[in-house]
């Protein structure tokens, strides 16, 4: 079974999210949106977007990545979310019960052995 196929996003917490978002916008030129992050298009050799993206965002401290207390969370692209979650459960991994499915894709979560929350994302077809 194909499992993780890429990095879909990286998210981290800040003591002062607004101030930190402004720093990344002003100094690193990241086009931070109202929701607190940006989506970077994957591009080909000519710089043309291919449809894939990697998201980036800064969160407020608190329970954003609960039950993990880690200051960051990585989103991994997967080919078959339901198949993978079933396999992870059978393998004894700490899979969270919650699932999210919408036109934006399917999301599930598992906790790694060091307590980091791992977001698994099956994008809609063609993204």
């Amino acid at each position, binding site marked *: 079974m194909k499992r993780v196929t890429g990095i879909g*996003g990286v998210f981290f917490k800040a003591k002062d999210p607004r101030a930190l978002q402004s720093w990344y916008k002003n100094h*690193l*030129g990241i086009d931070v949106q*109202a929701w607190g992050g940006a989506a970077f298009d994957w591009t080909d050799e000519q710089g043309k977007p291919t449809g894939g993206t990697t998201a980036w965002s800064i969160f407020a401290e608190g329970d954003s990545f609960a039950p993990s207390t880690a200051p960051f969370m990585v989103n991994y692209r997967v080919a078959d979310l339901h198949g993978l979650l079933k396999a992870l459960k059978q393998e004894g991994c700490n899979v969270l019960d919650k699932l999210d499915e919408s036109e934006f894709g399917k999301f599930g979560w598992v906790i*790694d052995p060091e307590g980091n929350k791992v977001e698994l994302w099956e994008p809609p077809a063609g993204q």
Partner: protein
Amino acid sequence: MKAETLLTCAIISCALSGSIDRALAADPAPAALKRVTGIGGVFIRAKDPAKLRAWYKTHLGIDVQAWGGAAFHWADAAGAPINGSTAWEVGNGSNFAPSNSSFMIDYRVADLQGLLKALREEGCEVLDKVVEDPKFGKFGWVMDPEGNKVELWQPPEGK
């Protein structure tokens, strides 16, 4: 905002780009200098790197290499790999110093030397070290205001 809604938001914001209100003030950065263009990598500090790598390899199917990580090639619309990639690594975090963070993000940039110069002029805490490698590209580092080490990477031409 809940973590799980993030990508949803990212997608919405892409779809509505131009119509979304900006929450932040106008950008003073000069338009001439392109700064960050993408996510080049994400690096995780582990208490037991070997064990954590094994977990990601076994359960998430990540093809962890001898150096402790993997490079995920970006894909085109048909799913075929293209040259751009995002690296992922689990390590002991010694390379995050002087930061004590448990993660470090690598950002792709178009012009490392130009950006480092601008960041210094803007009063940012740019580290002195710069690495230039013909195979892997150019690397520089800056500390963000919350003490995270930010890796800036100018990939080799065509990568």
